[in-house]
């Protein structure tokens, strides 16, 4: 059974790194990369497990749920595991060179591994309170990582992030407590089956709002997004890549999906709320992004906008829309982490992220330049890259479902998206190179490698959508379409 390893490996690595990292040179680099690599292998292996068994349930300590805690492996879980561990593996490779400029690299890896343990835990757990515990582990590790540079800017961002994040966690905890008081159980499948026997009443509605606000804040949906534009740029580039790439999706989107699609029910009003939140985030994020001059800030706002697309697609709720939404989630994880890694490479070489002070870097940093180009084109939805197809599927699904105005808004936002990514490329890689920068060199190989791999995935996810990604995505979509069938699936697997 592979499920516990997703938590054990990063937790163990965090422990070992904090213990030995200071004494043994390169130990932290090596162990962290080994850990994320093995996690990637395990997560890829989990795909075959899902295709073979549909659903697998692991009983922690052999306690039978709902008394004990269980871990569930289904299509959605393995989809998220692949996304998260793929990005984290490439990010740790990148960190080997990038984090050299910080002292206490081993502390960075310790926190990184803790955060990863939290994220993997959220994904695999089948217990609502357990989910909250992992969510707190991941969140607290991320507060520390945002402050890792310990400059004024980082500390301020981390403070804001910690306050808002704690408020959100409190809401989530409150929601879980209320659900517990109502159903007397914490197991997700069990809650779902008990709720389906009871009439819908105020408590469920109240819990819905608490979860929406809590997970919505983690996902940085407007108007719960205030922390993100400060926190994501302030973190070191690999962490920005993790935060924007997978963190907000795991703690926000995945948790929302699991809670609303599989535990609670998706009512018409909730659909309306999801679509409105999605559209507002999309629009506000895009308009704010185009006004920025700091590269990472622009990308951070862009994350808000793209999360809006995902939530919008989930709100539309047809099988095709959910497929598009999840595909966009995967694509966004890939190209947004790529772009943040690019911004890190730029900062590494020229020590600034201000667009007005850059220009013409393409001649000196060709690999950074071309990978940025691919990432930007993919997120702007230029064919034949991955982002184009996820956008295409979302739009077509929205039109098929009759959301014409919303689809038009999504299209117009994508034009703005194209505009600000072209602004980024234009100011950074094209145009005139500053004469002082004629001597700068391309970044070290470890950083190049992870950027190249991510760029290749951007291209591959577009070209190979039908043969490679469709079955993989469909198994994840089917889990969300199960809705209340989730409980039967889990209980069925237990027997």
């Amino acid at each position: 059974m592979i499920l516990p390893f997703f938590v054990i490996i990063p937790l163990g690595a965090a422990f070992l790194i904090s213990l030995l990292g200071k004494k043994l040179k390169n130990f932290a680099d090596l162990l962290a990369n080994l850990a994320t690599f093995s996690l990637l292998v395990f997560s890829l292996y989990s795909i075959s497990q899902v295709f073979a068994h549909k659903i697998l349930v692991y009983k922690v300590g052999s306690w039978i749920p709902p008394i004990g805690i269980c871990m569930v492996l289904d299509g959605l879980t393995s989809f998220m595991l692949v996304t998260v561990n793929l990005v984290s593996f490439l990010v740790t490779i990148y960190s080997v060179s990038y984090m050299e400029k910080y002292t206490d690299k081993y502390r960075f890896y310790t926190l990184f591994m803790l955060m990863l343990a939290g994220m993997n835990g959220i994904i695999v757990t089948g217990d609502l309170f357990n989910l909250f515990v992992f969510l707190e582990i991941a969140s607290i590790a991320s507060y520390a990582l945002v402050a890792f540079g310990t400059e004024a800017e980082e500390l301020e961002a981390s403070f804001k992030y910690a306050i808002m994040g704690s408020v959100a966690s409190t809401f989530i905890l409150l929601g879980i407590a209320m659900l517990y008081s109502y159903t007397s159980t914490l197991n997700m499948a069990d809650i779902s089956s008990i709720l389906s026997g009871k009439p819908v009443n105020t408590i469920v509605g109240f819990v819905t709002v608490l979860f929406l606000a809590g997970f919505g804040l983690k996902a940085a949906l407007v108007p719960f997004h205030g922390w993100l534009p400060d926190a994501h740029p302030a973190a070191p580039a690999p962490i920005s890549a993790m935060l924007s790439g997978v963190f907000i999706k795991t703690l926000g989107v995945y948790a929302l999906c699991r809670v609303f699609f599989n535990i609670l029910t998706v009512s018409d009003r909730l659909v309306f709320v999801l679509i409105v939140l999605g559209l507002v985030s999309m629009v506000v994020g895009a308009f704010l992004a185009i006004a920025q001059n700091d590269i990472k800030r622009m990308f951070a706002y862009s994350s808000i906008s793209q999360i809006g697309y995902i939530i919008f697609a989930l709100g539309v709720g047809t099988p095709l829309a959910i497929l598009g939404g999840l595909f966009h989630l995967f694509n966004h994880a890939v190209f947004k982490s790529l772009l943040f890694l690019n911004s890190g490479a730029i900062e590494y070489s020229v020590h600034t992220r201000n667009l007005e002070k850059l220009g013409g870097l393409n001649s000196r940093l060709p690999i950074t330049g071309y990978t940025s180009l691919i990432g930007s084109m993919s997120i702007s939805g230029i064919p034949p890259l991955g982002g184009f197809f996820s956008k295409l599927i979302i739009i077509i699904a929205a039109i098929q479902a009759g959301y014409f105005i919303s689809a038009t808004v999504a299209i117009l936002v994508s034009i703005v998206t194209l505009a600000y990514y072209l602004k980024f490329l234009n100011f950074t890689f094209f145009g005139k190179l500053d004469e002082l920068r004629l001597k700068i060199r391309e970044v070290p190989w470890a950083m190049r490698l992870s950027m190249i791999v991510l760029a290749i995935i951007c291209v591959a996810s577009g070209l190979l959508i039908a043969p490679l990604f469709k079955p993989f995505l469909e198994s994840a979509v089917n889990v969300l379409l199960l809705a209340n069938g989730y409980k039967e699936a889990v209980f069925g697997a237990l027997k």
Partner: protein
Amino acid sequence: MNIDFLYPYFRLDGLSSFVAAAIGLFSVLTIIYSFGFMRNRHGLLAYYTYIILTAIVSLLAVLSNNLILLLVSWGFLGFTLYLLINMGDENASSAAKKTFIIVGGSDALMLLGIGIIYYLSGTFQMDAIKISFTAYRLPLSVTAYLCIAIACFAKAGAMPFHSWIPDCAKSAPIPVVAFLPASLDKLLGIYLLARISLDLFVMSRALNILLMLIGAFTIVAAVMMALVQHNMKRLLGYHAVSQVGYMVLGIGTGNPIGIAGGIFHMLNNALYKSSLFLTAGNVEYRTKTAELDNLGGLSKAMPVTYISCLVASLSISGVPPFNGFVSKWMVYQGLIQNVTESQSLKVTSLVCLVAAMFGSGLTLASFMKLIHAAFLGQRTNASTGKQVSEVSWQMWLPCMILAIICVIFGVFAYQIPLKYFIFPAIPGVGFIGIWYAGLSTLLIIIGLVLGILIFRLKSLKPVLRTDTVFTGAETILLEEENKVTGTEFYNTIKELGILKSIYNKAEAGFFDIYDQAKIVVFGIGKYLQYLHNGILPTYMVWMLLGMIGLFLVLRAH
């Protein structure tokens, strides 16, 4: 060539086959030209890769019979165009950005249009779609049509989505301009416009009128802008916009002869416009400038270039017996035929006819200025010196081939291009040339006379002053005041009352959809930025307000 085994993803019919052939021709000529022009530049591998990719993907776009496939290849072309423009001069990156925002943005709208088509017809297969504008679902079908038409307009450069072309013409490498905005993008844009207007949708009268008005407006407005340009490439860029008007107008007439004329004009325009851009490239290559003020008297030094440019200029101005004449004449015929139709169509057709004639006259006037300023007149500093001689064969050969084709397509219009390319593409074109032939010819002659008249009026004074050149003692005076470049020919137009303010606004980007959208978007962005003041309590208040909103919406029901 039989590609039936690829059906239903690809399909070859009368329309797509000759567009595909034209794409092949232009690709080959551009590559030959680039061997000369792009020599000694950096990044040649990337350059040729992009050019060849563009050619292949354009073929895919034209041959595809599936809307998604079309959209993918169509969108990819915007991307290669962006990369190619970026290889130009120091302003190229902003021109590339502007181009890609307009073209890529219109592709996004096309996606919306295709989504709606799929909703209405349930298929992506192009030859299985036939949407008519009935009262039921009218807003949807019209939106779908307009979305795709906007993509065509942006690609081809019809107003108001034209503003990238003059910028791009000025900054991008010349072979790129001749290849994409001048020929391939026109072919593709008008091809798709014809495809949706003829096959995918059953046109309604209102949409025809809209197309015709857009066409007529594009012709006149762009040619007016072209008249006052000082940069040869920018001038040609505005003409590239203006000519699109004839094609849109032709397709808008809605009758076979007009549509055939529009499509023939698309082919002709690609021929003479790329020839013009390539000759402009030759001039720039030798003199290192494209400013008409600094050019002059190149006809002796560069005879082949001069002849090619002259043929292409006469062709674009619609002078018989060149090809531009034939296609314009067909478009006029189409318009005249509409006179027998209902009142609204009749009035529009007449208005458009007058506008098209007027535009044709102004085109001639504008090209007289160009020929005079660059090739005739007297030699300037930039155009003297040893290095100013005829360019290498790789560079003059494509110009000459194109010029020869211009002549052949004009003289033997019925025997070759119309018979083999155009009529097979357009079903239902009968024998043409009977209706009102006399009237059309008369109108064209009027247009020509008008052009010559405008040219005469404005050039009279400077031409007389050329005498002072030979006195020898007044060189300084000559440099500054009496220099005869031809660029001032039409400055008087600029000063005419109402036109003056229009020109001023046009130069300030008032009519540029890109600049206007930029103001709006940044305005909203700045306001939102003002709201994001970075103060934690503000953000907490938003969160609270958000929760209150959620409670209100999700309260127990």
